[in-house]
């Protein structure tokens, strides 16, 4: 099985990084999260309900829908916050944040479990500095339009209905889904990012696993 890889690129102002990343990551996770599984006897299971909520951006003329899960939101915000800190506040730069969905494959002792990615979303971010309020205003709208296009791109890919892990048995569910949250169950994922410094073009990679 080949891992599917999608790349999205956006150019934003420094203060828009958080919201732009949240919008795209949450849009992807909305499609890659299910309700909580409840296993019963005879191999059946029921699925909980996923709620959604609208989020308005403050620095971008854009609204997006995310899964109603404060826990999940906290995790994503933390990752995005670290990414933004790594990018530096208000400086030009380029970075990439990746959301990788993977499955665990149990290995026999002494080998550790293998993580096999099946879908990777990479969001390349180009941070620009703007000189005046007029440019910022234009940027608000432009970035909003761009994010709308990216949402459409995401939906196009998702609806190609390519590989998805099989629904696991109860013993295997933790190899496919992140069952740590109380209200929703996203596929196992990890977020990583790397920053490219325009000055020294040095790449620094942080690995952030969830």
């Amino acid at each position, binding site marked *: 099985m080949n891992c599917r890889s999608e790349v999205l690129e956006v150019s934003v102002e420094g203060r828009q990084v958080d919201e732009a990343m949240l919008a795209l990551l949450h849009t992807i996770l909305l499609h890659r999260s299910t309700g909580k599984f409840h296993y019963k006897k005879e191999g059946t299971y029921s699925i909980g309900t*996923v709620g*959604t909520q*609208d989020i308005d951006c403050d620095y971008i003329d854009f609204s997006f829908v995310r899964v109603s899960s404060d826990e999940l939101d906290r995790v994503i915000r933390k990752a995005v916050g670290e990414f933004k800190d790594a990018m530096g506040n208000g400086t030009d730069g380029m970075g990439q944040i990746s959301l990788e969905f993977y499955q665990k494959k149990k290995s026999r002792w002494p080998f550790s479990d293998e993580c096999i990615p099946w879908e990777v979303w990479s969001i390349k971010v180009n941070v620009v500095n703007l000189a005046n309020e007029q440019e910022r205003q234009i940027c608000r709208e432009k970035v909003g339009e761009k994010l709308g296009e990216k949402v459409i791109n995401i939906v196009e890919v998702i609806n190609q209905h390519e590989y998805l892990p099989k629904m696991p048995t109860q013993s295997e569910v933790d190899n496919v889904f992140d069952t740590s949250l109380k209200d929703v169950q996203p596929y196992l994922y990890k977020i990583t990012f790397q920053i490219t410094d325009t000055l020294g073009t040095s790449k620094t990679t942080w690995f952030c696993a969830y």
Partner: protein
Amino acid sequence: MMDSDLSPQDKKDLDKFIKFFALKTVQVIVQARLGEKVCTRSLSSPTGSDWFNLAIKDIPEVTHEAKKALSGQLPGIGRSMCVEISLKTSEGDSMELETWCLEMNEKCDKDIKVSYTVYNRLSLLLKSLLAITRVTPAYKLSRKQGHDYVILYRIYFGEVQLTGLGEGFQTVRVGVVGTPIGTITLSCAYRTNLAFMSTRQFERTAPIMGIIIDHFVERPFGNMGHMRPCNYRAPGEDEGAYNGVEDSQEVCTTSFSTSPPSQLYCSRLSYQPPVLVGAADFCHPSTLNAANPHQVTTQMGIPGKEGGVPQQVPVQPCHGAQAEHGRVSSCPPADHVPATPSSSGEGAETLSRSIEVKGVSPCDVLETTFTRKVGAFVNKPGTQVTTASLDLPFAAFAPRAYDLEENDPMVQPPESPATSSPLQGSLHSQGSGESGGPAQDDFVMVDFKPAFSKDDLLPMDLGTFYREFQNPPQLASLTIDVSSQSMAEDLDSLPEKLAVYEKNIDEFDAFVDTLQ
């Protein structure tokens, strides 16, 4: 693939899935155009009433309209279900903004499993619909509806009609789901040309075929005919309970099997009595102002974190249910409408949005543009006041080129008729007693509302002041009364004047000395 190749149970389940998918699609679209943020809660345990494992509330009126449109039929090949979103101004002009189409084509997927794969993909498609409905341009317009315009919806069944979207409309595909009887596609065609035209051009011809919903119900905006407002709120919703709970209740599919060959089937569910699910928070649509039915106040409820009505979780309908190989059980879907807790919370605000020309902030520039377009509704053919932005598709989303103001005749009125010299121009003035003049009538100005013009103290607003004083009379000292003097008389009086000046030359010299 022939329908006969599908087992009766599969066919029954598939029909049910398609029916409730269509109903939920309509709910998602209309709720996204209510003008408020939507918020529903995730529930770790299934309630048996949330189709496709998504918390999508059912507004009874919308469900009723959708069922009426379907009239017992299902979207199928050649039978599309469409939700049309329009904008209607308080002056009665309307414009179609977008049309969402749920269609089916003949491409079949024989091998797909109905109760598992199709169901999950329909769930995914609904999530995509939730995302896409926030991205099309009508979303921003709907968030700002209120005083000057409202968003309406119409559901119809049959042939897709896109002619009302104007030229150059764009299409976005939300997604497709293959089934054994055809491929379900969901897409949206949206208008890109937002320039208003005269109402005559928007007279709609009756559709050629299909079931048309025609509601002659009293509406705050007058005869809206078959359109329903997206911010209309039925009485009784304040209590938090929806009216019109269906008598026939069905529980939706929530249980699946993980047994490898039977992984694709769901277990049989029993009929469940109606249950109250009060856990979902919902931003209430706006209410009508009873005092003035033509004034719609948009209420924006900030969703509270806790629902007002405690959730009553029913007995799990899957207990004792057994997955059967080769059979898909009947899973009657939930059709009742859960009670809605009041979600006003402490943060509820009432916003009265009136579109006025208030300033140059980007949000208001949209509104500014809109007001001018409304002004252009004056039933005068020919030259209308237009700005450069009106020619742009989706002017609201075009770059805010601030030369808009430079090109805008409402901000920079056209100059007075060209004259050969300023002097002659003054000779043709209307006189000092009159203000204004023909210059201000060179263009049609309707409802000119200059920025920050609201003034309750003075009887004159800024617009009136501007119009009256933009052509002030010439100074008397610059006015030459031609009728009383001629060139010859000027020349005759010169020697006398020179004699006087020579007589007083000492005084003039002394004056010049003081200046040095």
